[in-house]
């Protein structure tokens, strides 16, 4: 919403400077986006008199002028053909920045003759593209006077950002009313307008809706003015519209635009001679179309409100008029429409057709229903003033919606809700200036132009925003009287633990979109139709991700393209399992590519399945889950390398994590070369930690007796998992065996095909005595027996 200071002052009696006005607007909720003061740009420029203009001694096209600036007489070299003695022009001193070019003017010598300034063209002033000569000012322009004053642009332009609840402030008068309430001046009274009809309106008006759609246009008023002379509107009106960025068209159209901006009351004017039969509002019929004022043809649907006559659709109610019945230079009889269009339907129509018009902007916010005929009268008066003609009587179809209501105002509520003590009288004054009227007791009537006010809290807002939010004292919130208790839920702690753990293991946290391309989702198990977006921002972000990995791989691809191939990236975020709210899991997922930066020593890691498994184990450990408690199986999903991946589960259904090298086909889709180690830990599936009554750790028992380590090399079927050997060995004598570690795995020469050798070291820790050779022998043979029984292993020769 834009307006100029002088326009505002049409409605507001104030001496406040523009800075103060802008500041107040922001403080009462009409946020100022910009104040553009053209006068400031033009301030250095003054009226000057050209005393003499002689030909330049060294150039045919230049003149050497003596210019009287009112303060001094200066020599100026000028190239304009119209520079001559006796004229008045716009003078710029050396050192001034020229608005049209942005260049600072310097004192200089032009072809050997000193020049102390410049006489400016319109283009140089930023006024137009005119550059054939310098500006010629009227003879009565006072020498030395600021050019801005002579030009009449001493009028700052203010632009405010309106919140959608304030339709009243889509008109300058509404803004003025708010400023008056904030004590920045007095709202000028509105002169009553009385139109004396000279003939009966020959144009019938109708509303044709069935009951369900009746509110589309509850009232439609119109009047004819005959014998008008349309043409360019007067300079003041053109200037006013131009100042806010509107193109003047003709007096009749400009009047409607003026009233729309001034009073938040959109109107429409028709060439009455082009109308046929009754003009009426109705819903469009499927298949109808209209050529609108913007020159485009719109296809209509049956939900749109249109204005029509016997010839068909004339315009879109509340959105845009039509081309065929618009006024022209030759219009002599004009029909003025003033109606109320339903905000919701207007918004929908505008949205569907993609039309953003000044009318839609106002109707969809809700125009003042009680200003329908007053606005029409004001328009009639202006038409008669500017274009002549005689008015008909007023025809009104329907009735303006009755929005009369009153609301309880409780001054105490201001303090209760806002902590601001305000005197009841002061609060009532504010409400009164905003147009709220005391009814009875604590009830106040809401003005018809405020559709946003419905309850006591709304009135509190009105009072507080005008009184000033800055007056609310900052009040400490009562705090817990104890040391604050922990607030994180177990899940929130897991998320934190996973992130910090992975970062401490050399991985870098990324955050990627929750949506991916459908084709990418397919690589990771795909998503049901219900997890596709109906309106994705782009086709490659159309599916809710079933895994966090695609985003990370895409990021790895971008990094690789920049030459950074070795990396570890992780993300802890949602992956979606179904379309209903809550059907999502928090995955701590990561990828490792390469082996870390090349260096003279050892590489930091290998992007292999065991690296991924180690990352998973570290997360589990950090989340309080003993890694040994989960079962490792070799059945990761299809996006993993089938031979080099696994799952970690608790029971057959509860998968805690997947890990492994990614499938080469997946990598190819991202233009990546492997191996890439990846893992996904579904944090919700981890078992809950048991609540413990105390934080005491279990008693530490250290044996004083010497531990014994013994190595075994078993040969087993290559398909037997190592974990079977370890488990069998570890459970051969639970009391004695402290740990089992694998220190070598070998397949190849010296081991039969289809077999592998696995070497383990078993640590025996007696608790109450030193082991004898015989006891050690006995334990070893138990271990051999147990492993052989469980896996069919033989001792390697």
């Amino acid at each position, binding site marked *: 919403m834009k307006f100029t200071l002088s326009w505002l002052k049409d409605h507001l009696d104030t001496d406040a400077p523009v800075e103060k006005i802008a500041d107040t607007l922001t403080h009462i*909720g009409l946020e100022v986006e910009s104040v553009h003061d053209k006068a400031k740009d033009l301030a250095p420029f003054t009226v000057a008199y050209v005393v003499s203009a002689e030909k330049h001694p060294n150039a045919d096209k230049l003149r050497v002028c003596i210019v009287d600036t009112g303060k001094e007489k200066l020599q100026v070299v000028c190239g304009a053909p119209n520079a001559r003695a006796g004229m008045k022009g716009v003078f710029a001193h050396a050192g001034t920045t020229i608005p049209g070019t942005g260049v600072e003017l310097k004192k200089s010598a032009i072809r050997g003759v000193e020049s102390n300034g410049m006489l400016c063209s319109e283009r140089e002033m930023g006024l137009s593209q005119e550059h054939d000569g310098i500006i010629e000012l009227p003879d009565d322009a006072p020498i030395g006077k600021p050019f801005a004053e002579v030009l009449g642009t001493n009028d700052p332009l203010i632009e405010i950002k309106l919140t*959608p609840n304030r339709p009243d402030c889509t008109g300058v008068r509404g803004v003025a009313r708010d400023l008056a309430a904030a004590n920045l001046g007095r709202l000028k009274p509105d002169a009553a307008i009385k139109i004396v009809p000279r003939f009966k309106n020959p144009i019938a008006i109708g509303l044709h809706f069935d009951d369900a759609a009746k509110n589309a246009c509850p009232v439609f008023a119109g009047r004819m003015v005959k014998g008008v002379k349309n043409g360019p509107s007067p300079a003041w009106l053109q200037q006013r519209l131009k100042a806010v960025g509107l193109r003047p068209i003709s007096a009749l159209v400009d009047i409607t635009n003026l009233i729309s901006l001034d009073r938040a009351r959109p109107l429409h004017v028709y060439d009455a001679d082009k109308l046929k039969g009754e003009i009426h509002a109705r819903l469009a019929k499927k298949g109808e179309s209209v050529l609108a004022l913007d020159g485009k043809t719109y296809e209509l649907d049956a939900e749109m409100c249109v204005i029509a006559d016997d010839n068909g659709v004339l315009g879109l109610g509340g959105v845009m008029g039509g081309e065929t019945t618009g006024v022209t230079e030759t219009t002599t009889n004009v029909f003025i429409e003033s109606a109320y269009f339903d*905000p919701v339907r207007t*918004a929908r129509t505008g949205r569907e057709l993609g039309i953003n018009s000044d009318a839609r902007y106002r109707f969809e916010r809700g125009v003042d229903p009680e200003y329908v005929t007053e606005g029409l009268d004001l328009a009639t008066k202006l038409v008669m003033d500017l274009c002549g003609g005689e008015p008909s009587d007023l025809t009104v179809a329907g009735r303006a919606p009755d929005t009369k209501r009153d609301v309880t105002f409780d001054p105490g509520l201001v*303090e*209760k*809700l*806002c902590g*601001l003590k305000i005197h009841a009288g002061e609060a009532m004054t504010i409400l009164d200036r905003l147009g709220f009227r005391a009814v009875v007791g604590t009830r106040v009537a809401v003005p018809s132009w405020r559709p946003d006010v419905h*309850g006591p*809290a709304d009135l509190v*807002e009105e009072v*507080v925003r005008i009184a000033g*939010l800055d007056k609310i004292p*900052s*009040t*400490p*919130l009562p*705090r*817990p009287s104890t040391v*604050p208790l*922990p*607030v*994180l*839920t177990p899940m929130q702690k897991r998320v*934190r633990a996973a*992130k910090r*753990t*992975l*970062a*401490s293991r*050399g*991985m870098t946290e*990324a*955050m*990627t*979109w*929750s949506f991916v391309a459908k084709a990418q989702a397919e690589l990771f198990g795909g998503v049901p139709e219900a997890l*596709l*977006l*109906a309106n994705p*921002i782009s086709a490659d972000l159309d599916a809710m991700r079933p895994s966090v990995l695609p*985003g990370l791989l895409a*990021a*790895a691809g*971008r*990094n690789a393209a*920049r030459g950074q191939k070795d990396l*570890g*990236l992780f993300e802890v*975020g*949602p992956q979606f399992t179904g*379309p*209903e*709210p809550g*059907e*999502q899991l928090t995955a701590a997922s990561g990828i490792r590519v390469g082996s870390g*930066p090349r260096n*003279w020593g050892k590489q*930091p890691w290998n992007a292999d399945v065991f690296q991924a498994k180690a990352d998973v184990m570290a997360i589990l450990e950090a989340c309080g889950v003993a890694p040994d408690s989960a079962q490792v199986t070799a059945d990761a999903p299809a996006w993993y390398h089938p031979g080099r991946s696994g799952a970690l589960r608790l029971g057959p259904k509860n998968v805690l994590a997947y890990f492994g090298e990614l499938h080469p086909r997946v990598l190819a889709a991202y233009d990546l070369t492997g191996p890439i180690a990846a893992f996904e830990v579904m944090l919700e599936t981890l078992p809950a930690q048991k609540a413990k009554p105390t934080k005491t750790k279990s008693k530490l028992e250290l044996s004083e007796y010497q531990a014994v380590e013994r190595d075994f090399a078993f040969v087993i079927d290559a398909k037997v998992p190592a974990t079977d050997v370890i488990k069998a060995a570890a459970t051969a004598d639970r009391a004695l065996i402290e740990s089992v570690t694998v220190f070598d795995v070998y397949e190849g020469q010296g081991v039969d095909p289809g077999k592998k050798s696995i070497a383990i070291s078993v640590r025996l820790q007696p608790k109450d005595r030193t082991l004898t050779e015989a006891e050690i022998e006995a334990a070893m043979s138990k271990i051999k027996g147990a492993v052989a029984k469980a896996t069919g292993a033989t001792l390697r020769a």
Partner: protein
Amino acid sequence: MRVQTREAIRSCKMQDLSKLENEALARIADAGDEAALEAARVDLLGKKGSISEALKTLGTMTPDERKAKGPIINGMRDRVTAALAARKGALGDVALEAKLKAERVDVTLPVRPEMQGRIHPVSQILDEATAIFADMGFAIAEGPDIETDDNNFTKLNIPPEHPARQMHDTFYLKAKADGTRHLLRTHTSPVQVRTMLAQKPPIRIIVPGRVYRMDSDQTHTPMFHQIEGLVIDENSHMGHLKWILEEFCRALFEVPKVEMRFRPSHFPFTEPSAEVDIRCDRSGGEVKLGQGNDWLEILGCGMVHPKVIEMCGHDPAKYQGFAWGMGLDRLAMLKYGAPDLRAFFEGDMRWLKHYGFAALDMPSLAGGLSR
């Protein structure tokens, strides 16, 4: 020879013993390596060594002779033994010295690289905000990314066709068979609804999370993070809200004071509503807090609309409170000077390394939120 020696010693004069000792010590001193020294030891103190022979003569002496010569010969043995040990130590030192010299490395070589991990600035700023609000007694509530229209809009006093719905530029999932369609939450406020529906006041929560809007330019991305707060009880008012926000900004930005400006605004779910700007200096292309004459909008807030309290199952005549919402990414941008929001979601290692945080940089109020 040996018999001669023994004879010589037995009969010898003190000068001869002295000569024997000098020769022995010279031999030890001349031993250039451990082998030569060992040979010397055998020749001197071995079973048939010269010193050992001298010691043997003591047995053949008369008590008087022994008394006179015993201390001399034993003293000689002790000195030779000590000389052997000293020489052995010296030879060992030389050998070790030489070995260590040979083991010299180039210490100017760079260290073996350890992969330095980083925490994303949004995670970091969330942990910072959590530390501040936990201290004020706020719990952290979360909710799903896919939401119902009801929770995201209707229960927040944004009925269907309300113009505010357009302002939100909502992403919708494909419509279900019954025509309803879920959406990606456009703000974290549905978690207010979920919390109020599930729990009786008093309520003090902050809600961090991903939110989604159809927007994309340098300062807008289709996904970003919000953090909002909700306080519902019987007395909390806008003055408290002001205090919380002032304290939060002061603590988060780690400056003595953040000057704030509360501007009236409009949100369907709060009444009265305000937007909050903080004073900053924007000259020179970067934002500096706590100085200058520019204002930067950082959040929206207000008293929870009575209709929202009512729709969430509580009596608005009894309960009141406030809510605020701000961009978590924007806070990180402001505090850490990251200029481009889009970069937050690019996963560019260079950016993450620069703007990210070490794993052990865990924010705490006691130690300061950031290093």
